[in-house]
């Protein structure tokens, strides 16, 4: 199989416009182009949909309001009223990941959420931000988080390391979940799409499978954006309320 026909070729980073500032490589790649496209699409969707706000919303305005209310109620349910301050950030995370995932489903599109470095950077921002919020709010009491209340002291040597490891693995699980889902889905699509051609007439079977899988992938695009968002909310809730 030639290199450009590999199922992983779709994840190749291509430097469209090589830019270097000092010694730092900040080239405009296909990945960054789709990030910019995502920002433009999300802003256009949300801002243009609200250009002439009506008391009784039309279809577009309804969709904008629906996405807002969806995340607002998610934040309210998981974090509570203190979560209002962080709502713009969580809303941004949701829309960015969701539209990024969906652009990956467009033919010839590029899925920047299928790159571990992207999801890991986002997860680290969430992790460090949440930890900073917790430290600022609870000062040293934050470290009681690693010792759940009501646990006998004798269990501490066992439990505290486990809690610390589970806390530190949060950015890992958060980033790997999104990355792996996107990677696996798109690879599978590509593999089966390759069968369509090689099987000739019998290619209709993998074709039907690819169609079904495309629907599933769109669902997963929503679901993973939602999971990423709700986990961010849960971590934020832990930071604000400890246990």
């Amino acid at each position, binding site marked *: 199989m030639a290199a450009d026909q590999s199922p*992983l*070729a779709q*994840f*190749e*980073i291509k*430097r469209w416009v090589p830019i270097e500032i000092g010694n*730092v*490589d*900040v*080239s*405009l*790649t296909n*990945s*960054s182009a789709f*990030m*910019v496209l*995502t*920002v433009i699409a*999300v*802003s256009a969707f*949300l*801002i243009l949909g*609200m250009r002439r*706000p009506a*008391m009784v919303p039309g279809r577009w*305005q309804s969709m*904008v*309001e629906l996405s*807002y*209310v969806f995340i607002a109620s998610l934040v309210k349910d998981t974090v509570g009223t203190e979560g209002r301050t962080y*709502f*713009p*950030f969580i*809303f*941004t995370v949701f*829309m*960015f990941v969701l539209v990024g995932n969906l652009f990956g489903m467009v033919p010839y599109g590029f899925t*920047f959420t*299928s*790159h*571990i*470095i*992207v999801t890991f*950077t*986002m997860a680290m921002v969430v992790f460090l931000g949440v930890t900073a919020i917790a430290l600022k709010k609870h000062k040293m009491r934050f470290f009681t988080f690693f010792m759940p209340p009501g646990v006998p002291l004798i269990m501490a040597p066992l439990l505290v390391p486990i809690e610390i490891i589970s806390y530190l693995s949060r950015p890992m699980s958060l980033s790997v979940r999104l*990355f792996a889902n996107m*990677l696996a889905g798109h690879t599978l699509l590509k593999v089966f799409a390759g069968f369509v051609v090689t099987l000739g007439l019998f290619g209709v079977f993998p074709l039907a499978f690819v169609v079904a899988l495309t629907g599933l992938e769109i669902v997963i695009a929503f679901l993973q954006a939602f999971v990423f968002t709700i986990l961010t909310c849960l971590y934020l809730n832990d930071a604000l309320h400890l246990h």
Partner: protein
Amino acid sequence: MPQLDVNTFLPQVVWLVITFTALYLLMWRVAVPRIADVLEARQRRIEDNLDKAQESKKEAEQTLAAYEQAMNEARAGANTHITEATARMSGEAAEREAELALDLSARITAAEDEIAKAVDDAMDNIRAATIEVAAAVLERLTGEAPAEKDVAKAVTKVLKSEGR
């Protein structure tokens, strides 16, 4: 695997930071407040309308209460009128009846008197006739005219024993 190519990490992270920050600022400063304003305005409008509906309901209830009170008053007034009229009419009827009864009894008395007088007259006539007949019969039988006084006495006595 292209994901593990370390050379691509830096441009991706840089662009991620730029684009995500840009989107965050746009959301935070423009989109979110705008949507929140619209939703809040709608919520306020709905609450306003609910308040207004509540007020209208209260007003309607007050109007209904006033109407019912007026109806009750009118009904009570009508009842007193009816009672008064009934009392007045029955009084008048009783008066008229009493008058009528008085008049009737007077007339009855007069009629009875007349009848009694007529009966007396008739009796007197009968007695006179009887006396005459009796005298004539005696004259025929005895050939001698009896004393009118005795005949009258006997006839009166017989009539009295007959109850006339």
